[in-house]
């Protein structure tokens, strides 16, 4: 049982500043491991893994935010993420008994028991290649985690026999519709014909889902230096240039956001125009639900490339927003979307279906189709506008 120990959390940062999901992952890791330490064994740890250059201070911060120990690979070559060398370094760290021995009894250590990555542009790919290298299982885009003993009966894993799998990580991922939760498990094959261990049990975690723990600067823990070595072949990908771009979609400085979803379906082009008009009237930015970014409706090229783009997605697959006013037009309210807008100050939904989940997440529910409601609402807003401007 001691072959697999600890929960390794792969930290992402930009020049030493952690991206928020890194602290969120540590927070959830801490909560899970506190429970684990009580229930199973006290000597397993949350281990933050950092690749970078001159980021020693970040390592201390990671302890303050819940890590028991930090393994830190320092090299100028690791300053920015590069899949090839990062995968190699993380895989070496994950299989190093020597490193694990610096913070625990690692006499039998083979690999981490669990591993967390961020489900973002870097972590999604990194988790895939690391787990391909480690030849174990990976579940992506997770928003709920439980560690439990499970009785499993599976045609291959257990050859149809019920068997107990201890300390199993249940990884929940919402499907594309946002209405179904699929629980993924990573299990050793215990079928005698094909016995094989599959560890670590790994997943990538959706940004913005879990809360970090409160920073505690009295926390202490070992920070382990690892000096990676590279050959020329490892360094064959060269970063020539790196340019910061700001999205033209501005959710942060606008007081209001008007979003639309599949409810535009009866006349997509016209309805998007109406939404855009409403947004202009309220000086709001336009958001969309995830399905819209898959361009499910035929609209003009200009409308499609302006509005049906991933940059505008609000929810767990896009941005989390908290405007003073949020208008959800033709959005049913899948969990993924709600997670992105629930912090809004005041929510108005426009929807013909009173049974849709958005009704439980709004302050005013305007019952009706957007093509009928928005023109009337626009008229009322315009009538009142002169009064506001005088007052200003």
């Amino acid at each position, binding site marked *: 049982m001691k072959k697999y120990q600890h929960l390794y959390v792969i930290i992402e940062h930009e020049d030493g500043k952690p991206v928020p999901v890194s602290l969120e992952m540590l927070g959830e890791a801490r909560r899970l491991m506190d429970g684990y330490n009580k229930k199973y064994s006290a000597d397993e740890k949350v281990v933050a893994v950092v690749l970078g250059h001159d980021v020693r201070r970040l390592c201390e911060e990671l302890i303050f935010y819940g890590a028991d120990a930090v393994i830190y690979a320092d090299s100028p070559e690791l300053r920015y993420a590069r*899949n*090839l060398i990062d995968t190699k370094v993380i895989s070496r760290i994950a299989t190093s008994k020597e490193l694990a021995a610096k913070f625990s009894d690692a006499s039998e250590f083979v690999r981490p028991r669990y591993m967390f990555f961020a489900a973002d*542009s870097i972590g*999604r790919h990194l988790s895939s290649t690391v787990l391909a290298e480690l030849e174990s299982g990976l579940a992506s885009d997770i928003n709920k985690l439980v560690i439990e003993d499970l009785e499993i009966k599976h045609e291959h894993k257990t050859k149809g026999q019920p068997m107990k799998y201890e300390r199993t990580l249940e990884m929940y991922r919402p499907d594309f519709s946002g209405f*179904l939760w699929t629980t993924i498990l990573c299990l050793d094959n215990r079928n005698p014909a094909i016995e094989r261990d599959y560890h670590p049990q790994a997943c990538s975690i959706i940004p913005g889902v879990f809360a970090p723990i409160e920073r505690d600067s009295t926390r202490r823990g070992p920070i382990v230096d690892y000096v990676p070595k590279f050959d020329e072949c490892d360094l064959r990908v*060269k970063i020539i240039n790196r340019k910061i771009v700001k999205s033209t979609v501005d959710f942060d400085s606008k007081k209001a956001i008007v979003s639309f979803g599949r409810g535009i379906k009866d006349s997509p082009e016209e309805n998007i125009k109406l939404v855009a008009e409403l947004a202009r009237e309220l000086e709001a930015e336009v958001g969309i639900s995830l399905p819209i970014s898959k361009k499910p409706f035929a609209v003009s090229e200009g409308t499609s490339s302006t509005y049906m783009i991933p940059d505008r997605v609000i929810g767990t697959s896009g941005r989390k927003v908290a405007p003073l006013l949020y208008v959800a037009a033709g959005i049913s309210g899948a969990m993924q979307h709600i997670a992105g807008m629930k912090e809004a100050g005041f929510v108005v939904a426009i929807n013909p279906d009173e049974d849709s989940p958005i009704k439980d997440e709004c302050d*005013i529910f305007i019952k*009706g189709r957007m093509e009928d*409601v928005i023109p009337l609402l626009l008229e009322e807003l315009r009538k009142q506008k002169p009064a506001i401007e005088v007052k200003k």
Partner: protein
Amino acid sequence: MANLNVAVIVKLEPDFSEGNVSYNADGTLNRAETKSILGPHSAVASSAAFYAKVRYGASVAVATMGPPIADSALQQAQLLCDADELYLYSDRMFAGADTLATAEVLKTGISKLEGKMDIVFSGHRASDGETGQTGPQTAWKLGFTFLGNVIDYDVDMQNRIVRARRMISLQGFYDVVEEVEAPLPVFIAIDPSYKASFNTVSQRLAFEKYQKEAKERAQNYKQYLKVFNAQQLGVDPKLVGLPGSPTIVYKVERIPKAKASRRAEVVDGTNREQLAKVATRMYEVVGGMVIK
């Protein structure tokens, strides 16, 4: 023989476009009523391969793992990229594969292709599984340099180097466009925003020529199609299908309805008086004052 060989891995997926996709009353996908097509991200990957054909005269192979009907995805991809060869890896033994076991089949298939591959393309992610793992895992198993989120690329044919631009979104900070350089062979997971552009007259002529050829070929796609089962591919049965899959789907459940977080006041969308109040409230919320 072309001196650039590219391959594309594609997937047959449910068609999520309106009118084709069918949802159950509870908002979940009705798979039986939803037809399948070449996935939209696979289509983008195919167009990236077509760019290699037009620009560099590349030879293009398209490959997929799936049931026999997945050959329709190959046909649709051929129409987009004028593929010279189509490969379907199909065997009951592959059923139930997770991303690692799928990558094993694709890796084995691509390694078997005639001529050494210089670039392998995949889409960003599938629209149904949405993991985005199969591409990078295939790349790693192949031992190819993996470049993800690629928004455009060019090949320095003389030096056998790829130059690519990648779009990385650093949540909580900003987006970064990164220019990278890597020697062939590489594996490119293409970003959904990718669009091939052909700027010179000779490129446009080549574009038209290959597009015409693609139409003719796709009509007779079976002539270009080779189907391999597990034995013909020579995969290790322990590494594919269920035995090669570390993960299982333990359960699928409806996400419990969260406790109502707000109590909505219901307004009749045809009632002007009520809408006027809504308008007032909206202005108040965003900080404008209304004279009552």
